């Protein structure tokens, strides 16, 4: 009979050969994302929207900002105006094509910036000692209690109405929300043992937060942020409807809906329906991407 040690040597090679799913080349998150049909559809829709917006000068058949008085309110399918014209005779198709530029910018940019800011704030506040986190969260509370519209009006008054006040407003409006979501997730997470383990392994506060906890709270962040983005296209439209946002005659989906809503029951529902549907579609697509991303980053999701 041989000694245990020798037999161990024999057995050493064996498990390696067997040990289950072998040398899986690690697939990246975006590969996992694209493997999900809904997320894929979402990516495609968002991409198309972005590309069409970028290519607007070449794609749009008419100038989106000028119309001809005589041709107003043409129905869908009119000669020369595939999707008809609006109440001052501008080509709806052209306006839709151009309209994504501001809408997408306003939907994405501030949310991205706010997400980054809020993630840092929320992580720090959730993990820092009580005093620091208390102060941080109270500052967030102040932002919170502050009416968004007041920001909007103040920015518009200071910098003139336009896109930037809206972007700033959305950032300031979104930060407290996202921060609180992340904050409470972090608080729930920080007591877990892997966090303790990472500290044992020498992780500094920042490393614990960003390398260990962040990936584990990424799901709500992604979900929350992608949900916001869609809503913000709409919010920006609401702001511009009261004169703070995008300036006419710039085409903007949100504004088209707001302006068209008045004609909704008066025989021209398409004027608000078309841009409304597009906003909904893009926002929904974004939500799909969000859900997909969430799942792609979820190690349990195969």
């Amino acid at each position, binding site marked *: 009979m041989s000694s245990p040690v020798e*037999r161990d040597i024999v057995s050493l090679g064996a498990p390696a050969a067997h040990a289950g799913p072998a040398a*899986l080349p690690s697939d990246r998150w975006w590969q996992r994302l694209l493997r999900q049909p809904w997320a894929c559809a979402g990516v495609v829709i968002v991409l198309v929207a972005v590309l069409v917006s970028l290519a607007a000068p070449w794609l749009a058949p008419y100038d989106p900002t000028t119309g001809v008085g005589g041709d107003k309110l043409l129905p869908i399918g009119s000669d020369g105006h595939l999707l008809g014209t609006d109440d001052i005779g501008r080509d709806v198709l052209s306006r839709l094509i151009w309209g994504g530029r501001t809408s997408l910018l306003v939907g994405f940019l501030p949310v991205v910036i706010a997400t980054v800011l809020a993630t840092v704030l929320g992580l720090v506040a959730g993990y820092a000692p009580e005093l620091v986190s208390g102060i941080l969260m109270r500052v967030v509370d102040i932002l919170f209690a502050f009416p968004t519209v007041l920001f909007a009006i103040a920015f518009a008054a200071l910098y003139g109405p336009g896109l930037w006040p809206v972007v700033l407003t959305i950032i300031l409006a979104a930060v407290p929300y996202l921060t609180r979501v992340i904050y409470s997730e972090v608080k729930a997470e920080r007591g877990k043992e892997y966090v*303790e383990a990472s500290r044992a392994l020498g992780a500094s506060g920042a490393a614990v937060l960003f390398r260990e906890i962040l990936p584990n709270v990424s799901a709500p962040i992604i979900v929350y942020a992608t949900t916001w983005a869609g809503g913000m296209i709409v919010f920006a439209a609401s702001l511009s409807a009261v004169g703070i946002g995008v300036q006419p005659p710039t085409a903007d989906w949100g504004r088209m809906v707001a302006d068209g809503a008045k004609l909704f029951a008066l025989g021209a529902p398409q004027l608000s329906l078309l841009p409304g549907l597009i906003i909904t579609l893009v926002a929904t697509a974004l939500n799909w991407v969000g859900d997909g991303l969430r799942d792609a980053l979820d190690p349990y999701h195969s």
Partner: protein
Amino acid sequence: MTTTLLQVDELRIGFRGRREVTPVVEGISFHVDRGEILAIVGESGSGKSVTASAVLGLLPERSSTVSGSVRFAGRELLGLSERSLNTVRGSGITMVFQNPLTSLDPSFRIRSQFLEVIRSRRGVGEEEALAVASRWLETVGLSDTERVLGSFPHELSGGMRQRVVIAFAAVNEPDLIIADEPTTALDSTVQKQVLDLLLSLRRDRGLSVLLITHDFGVVSHTSDRVIVMRAGRIVESGRTADVLADPRHDYTRTLVGAVPTLGSRAAAAGAVVSGSSAGVTTAGVGAGVSRPPAGAATADGSGADEDALRAEHVVKSFDVGSGRRRRTFRAVDDVSFSVRRGEVLGLIGESGSGKSTLARIATGLVPPSSGSVTVFGRSAEQLGSAAERRRFRRDVQLVFQDASSALNPRRRVVDQIAIPALRLGVATSRAEAREQALSLLESVHLPRSMGQRYPHELSGGQRQRIGIARALSARPRVLVLDEPTSALDASTQAQVLRLLHELRDELSLSYLFISHNLSVVESFCDRIAVLDSGALQEVFPAEDLASGERGPVTRGLLDAVLR
């Protein structure tokens, strides 16, 4: 009338990868008769837990494939709907999962969870259910039932949680209990108590048990038959006595041969230590560090400055309960000890005696309520600069008892190991860190391909070894190991222990080694400390463990060891 209760035929289990299904169980068949206890032993990662889960339809639906047949009391379980399965689960079959530490809902007190379990199968009032619960907790050796019932899971020690789960499984008197390593976190006394409980249930109620274990003591004490699994297949099966006495298959022989036995310290230690290190690479760990002066390891009288780890009058108390039931509980009570450079100090004691708490304090993760801990003269609480802190972290490492919880669920295995190494400055580049991590995986007997997995895709023993590899990657000078091999089969355990031994010899590492397995403690440690209800009972050289003059606690533990 057939006496077969559970009949498993040609069971195949695979996990879906991106393109292909990877088989982990490749057509196994076995059966459990009424009133029979069948033990499954086998290599870590051989598919034991997965098989158990498959029987009750508890494998993740999306990522796994199951085929073959599982018949319980004549009824096919595979393919049953969740609702039909529910009539079997709980009253027909219950299960004790391998990882008891995360099995309880963290949001509810034990009382509430227990009542739920009891009342799901019996129409009893709260009062009565509570009485039943208390009785069962006592039966599994949890005498402070009031405190246990009023605790949240995280307030209980590993062994306490494991016993709670066992009580859950048994309380509704099922026909079959599938127990996956049910006693890994238990000291020998309690282990025996629990196993005897199973035996008595079998005797009185005709209970059948499918017992998955690594512990041959448990196997021989409890089971009627045993099957041995390796690499997804059954390599041997038969009556327990036959298999143990005369193992046929090579693997079984290896396994049985690797079991350390109590009272043979010199022999066992010798066998392990003298083995060649062929096939085991320590490259990722020991490179570039010179050997310490020979003999330092076991010398008893070295000076105090040679103390690697030193605890003085350490006390830790917790506030437990709520409202009027609130009280202070001393988990660690004025403990002082030291571990010398190159020494292995074993720490034993009953479940819940404060070992894990002490381990956390020793590694500076938790500040003691009073008293102090120093590592090479430095106290964890007085670390000034970041560099100093990193140095301290490098010096002392902890292998967590709850291997699963201590792994970041969103990080691949290789990075679990590589990133801390990089952070602590052990490796200088990402590639180097990864390479070291992969070779460490090999050192703990895991294939390099494991590196690509996420923690939840591993077996219990695999996770435990990741924890060890991770702690080693820091190249610590002091290593606190909290039940590091409880989920490992004997041969893998021997492998890991030998690795630790070699490292100690090469690098003069010091270990604080916590374990319930007295034979391992005896063979691996230089000295042994015994903890009882938070207080240190005695410290003695390992050779003296089996000698007559041990205190009552130690003797109790010794007496209960299953041979």
